[in-house]
Structures are given as structure tokens and as C-alpha cells.
């Protein structure tokens, strides 16, 4: 009886902690559904994010760890992905499902174009920056006119979010840079938020599976622990 109550209490605490973290998250101006303890990816946002990536980033950046076939995880059918790849040109042929998301710009040319700065591969970029999802959003919306006391280096732009504030990447997003199929208004902020969601998925494609298995494992282990405590008490009853 007592154990049953503590089991319920422990489980409630775990779920409450998870949803509290989630609720707190929804209140912030920047909110991605995947960030709560039990939050999963918003597939509509991922699909919009891929469109932004393909339109506004892929000309300079690659996402080499991804293949086009992986895009079915965004909720697209294989046929839909095949339609997308058919419209993407690699050297002298259309892309296929088994091609990697390479950049349209060869590395050697890229370095020359941006004063020695090479656009990094974006497959793992969200994992590779502290608070990666927010960072991508802030970076893409952080272009500003430089303060009066700052002289920019050649071929650099002022960005509030970038460490050192001078980045070689020209602002990649503008309002209506893409047209969303689902009718969402394509503001710069919306595009930044969606591409941040897409890159979060690219860095951590197993997030949904991880949390689903995790929830089941934790519930199972809470009961196992209580069972262990009950067993131990019974066995040791006449010792202590």
C-alpha cells in the first residue's frame, strides 16, 4: 500500500517535472516543440525548414551526413522525396535518394569567395554549438548595422549572435525568400525558426525514438526499484 503510493508519487513527480520543463518552454518567445523533456519534432516545421535549407543555405553549405532518403523522417513519402531530388541538379544529373546533401559550391571556391572562411558542414551544427537551436535562430536574425565604433573587416558583416560579431556569411534570409506550401507567412523570423528546427533534426534524428523508449524504460525501472525495495525489506526483516 505504502509502496503503491510512493510509486504513484515518484511517477507523478517524473511526469510533472517533464511537463513543467515543457510548459516553461512554450512561454518563451523562442519555442521549438522538440525541446521539452517529452517533446517530439513538429513535422510541418521540419518540412518548411528543409525548404528554407534547400532554397537559402544549400548553395553554400553541405549537410554531408544526411542522404535525401533520410527526409522521409520529416513525414514525406518516398515519392514526394523523389520529386524533390528530381528538381535538384548535381554536376550534370538530377540528385537521387542515395545522394548526400552536398553543397552547390566546391570548397576551394567557397574559401576564395568568403575571404578564406569556409561555410561549415551543417549536419551536426546544432549539437556543436551551446544551445544550438536558439543559436541558429539568433544567428540568422542577428544581422544588424554595425555600431559606430566598430570597423568591419573586409567581406564581413555585423551579427549580434556570432562570437566576435563579425561573420563572413552574408545574411541568408529575407522576408518571402520561400513560399510555404502550407500557407504559413514566410517572415525572416519564421524561416529562421523553421530552418533551426530542421537543423536540430539533422543533428539529432533519433530524438523521438530516444524519448519514447526512455519514457517506457523509466516507468519500468521505477516499478523495478520499488519491487527491489519490497523484496529487500522482506528478506532482511528478521536481521535488523
Amino acid at each position, binding site marked *: 500500500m505504502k509502496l503503491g503510493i510512493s510509486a504513484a508519487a515518484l511517477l507523478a513527480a517524473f511526469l510533472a517535472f517533464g511537463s513543467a520543463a515543457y510548459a516553461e518552454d512554450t512561454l518563451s518567445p523562442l519555442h521549438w516543440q522538440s525541446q521539452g523533456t517529452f517533446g517530439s519534432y513538429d513535422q510541418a516545421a521540419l518540412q518548411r525548414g528543409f525548404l528554407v535549407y534547400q532554397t537559402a543555405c544549400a548553395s553554400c553549405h553541405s549537410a554531408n*551526413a544526411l542522404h535525401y532518403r533520410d527526409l522521409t523522417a520529416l513525414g514525406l513519402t518516398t515519392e514526394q522525396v523523389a520529386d524533390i531530388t528530381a528538381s535538384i541538379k548535381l554536376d550534370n544529373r538530377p540528385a537521387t535518394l542515395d545522394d548526400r546533401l552536398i553543397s552547390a559550391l566546391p570548397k576551394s571556391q567557397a574559401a576564395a569567395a568568403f575571404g578564406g572562411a569556409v561555410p561549415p558542414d551543417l549536419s551536426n551544427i546544432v549539437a*556543436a554549438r551551446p544551445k*544550438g537551436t536558439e543559436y541558429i535562430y539568433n544567428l540568422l536574425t542577428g544581422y544588424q548595422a554595425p555600431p559606430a565604433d566598430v570597423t568591419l573587416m573586409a567581406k564581413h558583416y555585423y551579427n549580434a549572435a556570432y562570437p566576435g560579431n563579425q561573420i563572413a556569411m552574408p545574411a541568408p534570409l529575407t522576408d518571402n525568400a520561400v513560399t510555404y506550401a502550407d500557407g504559413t507567412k514566410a517572415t525572416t523570423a519564421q524561416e529562421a525558426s523553421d530552418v533551426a528546427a530542421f537543423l536540430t533534426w539533422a543533428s539529432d534524428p533519433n530524438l523521438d525514438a*530516444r524519448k519514447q523508449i526512455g519514457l517506457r524504460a*523509466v516507468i519500468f*525501472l521505477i516499478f523495478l526499484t520499488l519491487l*527491489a*525495495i519490497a523484496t529487500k525489506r522482506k528478506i532482511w526483516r528478521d536481521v535488523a
Partner: protein
Amino acid sequence: MSDQTKSWLDSRLPLAACFRAQVCDKPLPANRPYLSALGTLITGTLIFLMLSGAVLSAYYVASDHGAYNSIQFIMRNVNDGWLIRSFHATGTTMLFAAVYLAIFHALITGAYRLPGELVWGLKLAFLLLMMLVGYLGYAMQDGAVSHWSLHDVTLAGAGLSSFPGNISNWVLGGPAGHGTLGHVAMMHGLLTFIALGVLVLHYYAKQAVAPVAKKTVPLHPYYTSHHFVAVSVYVLLFAVLVFFAPHLGENPLNAAPANPLLVPAVMTPPWYLLPAAAVTHALPGTEGGIVAFFAAFAVLFAMPWLDRSDPRSEPGFLYKLLVVILGLDVIALGMTAAAGPSTINAILMIIFIGWYFLHFLVLTPLVTARESK
């Protein structure tokens, strides 16, 4: 097994009887705290790490261009590869948490005192080995940070090449070259087996000096049920981290591939190496760092003799308070290493390291001598 085969086996190799006598019926003290399960947890975790590491090694490529990409392949394309790697990374976190706790527990209870000095020494040897193995595992990822850290370490090793047999080349394959990661991976595995051996020695050494208990109970079912509780709680914690915080205590910058042209400003290692990293930056130069690191371990090894109290007495209140402060001091030291270089940080680091040595070399002898009077 038929009765006939069983009696034949028992007459030739009495495994079952031996198991019953040595394990099941083994008499153990009737009154033990849950922390006494730490040894079981540490051994279990080490074996778990060896198994998950063996699986990962089937896919890991130890080369300059292969290492990072092979880990990405494990995370993305190998079935459940992300889970195995997460087990391995989080297992390391759990192992270090348990080892640090065990060391702290031995310090605060005075377990290092005679006749426990060898048990204590083996504990420290295990920690030292785990730090090396942990560091090598971190270096194996060849990320934007660990790549440069390994570069520095191999250079430092080359500076020590006056050692007989040129240990550094033998162990690390010389200054970051093509063979380096292969050597690192090899040592990562090899030292783990040595560490397992140290755990076995620790187990027997502890048995040899264990005080005779007034009242005992057989291992099974008493200790099995007791440890079942400890293991379940530990695994529960483990699962929460694996599934909800798989990158806890890692430096995110290291998730990017190494850039041979860009040295990171702050080379923050994983959490369990932070205090050690701070100590190696305490004295200038490579040699200074190595001297400081081994000095920090040397005072720990010397504890049985720095403590002036009667080994049979309970540690005094002031002594215990000082051990708690020492624990906080080491955590604070790790935080200065995580925060990166700045003047204020450098000063704090010196203060925290100073306190560490003051604790062992001055305060411990003074306080223990006074408290046991």
C-alpha cells in the same frame, strides 16, 4: 543436465559447490550501508563499458579522416548505434560519479588508514587509470576540441622523449600523425583491462583487511537483495540520463569535426576531467603541468601517513568538515577550468589548488593529531 553428468562434473570440477561456498553462502556483515554497493556498481559499469565499447569498436575507424565520420555513421546509420554510443558515454559519466563518490567516502570515513592503505592505493590507481582511459576515449572522437587537446598532449609527450624507450612514441605514436588515433584507441582498450585487474586486486585486498563482523548473514539472499536495490536505483538514474540528457557534461563544441586550421580558444574536456585539467594548467609549461598532476595524486596516496590519528578512532568532526570543504574545492576548481582563461579565473584556480595542497599537507596532519588527543 542429467544426474549422471552432474555428478561426473562435480567429481571432476566442483564448480557448483565452490560457487555455493564462495559466493552464495559467503558470510558478510549484517549491517552495511547502501554505499557498500559502490564496488558492485563500479565493476558492473566497467564491464558494461567494455561490452558497449567492443560493439562500437566494430564500426570505429581510427584515422584522421575516419574517426569523426565513423562516429557519425554509428549515430545515424548503424541500427541502434546512437543507443550504444549513448550507453558508452553515459556509462562513463556514471562510472566517474561512482568512483569520485567512493574516493570521497573513503576519505571522510578514514577508510584509507592502516591497515587499509593498500586498498586505498588501489582505489587511487583505478581512478588514475580511468582518467587516462576517459581522456583517450575523449581524444578518440577527434572533435574540434579534443583534436587539439590530443595534439598538445602528444607534443608534450614528445618533450618527454628522453624517457627510456621513448614511451611517448610507443604509447601515442608520436606528435599527432596518422598513427596517433590508432595508438590512442589501442591504449584506450588495453588500459581498461588493466583497470579491471586493479579492481580484482582491490577486492581481495579489501577482504584481507576487513574487520571481523560480530554478526554475519550469507551473501545470498541478503546481499543479492540489498544490491538489487542499489543497482535498480543506479540503473534508473542511468536511464534518465541516457534517454533525456545523453550529452550531459560534454563540451558541445567538440561535436564539430576537427578543423586543422582553427585552435579553439577554450579546450574544455568532459566534466570528469575538469579538476585534473585545471591542475595541469597550474604550473607553467608541459613539465609543470605533469608535475602538478602527479603531485596532486601523490598527496592522495600519502593520506595514510599524513593522517596522524589513531587508525581505530572515529574521524573527528573538524576533519570531516574539512573533507566536505575539499570536495567543494575540487568542484570549484573544475568550474574554473570550464569557464576558460581570464585573469580572475587564473587567480581563483591558484587559490583552489593552493587549498587542495594545504588541506593534505598542513590541515590534515594538524587536525587529525589534535582531534585524536
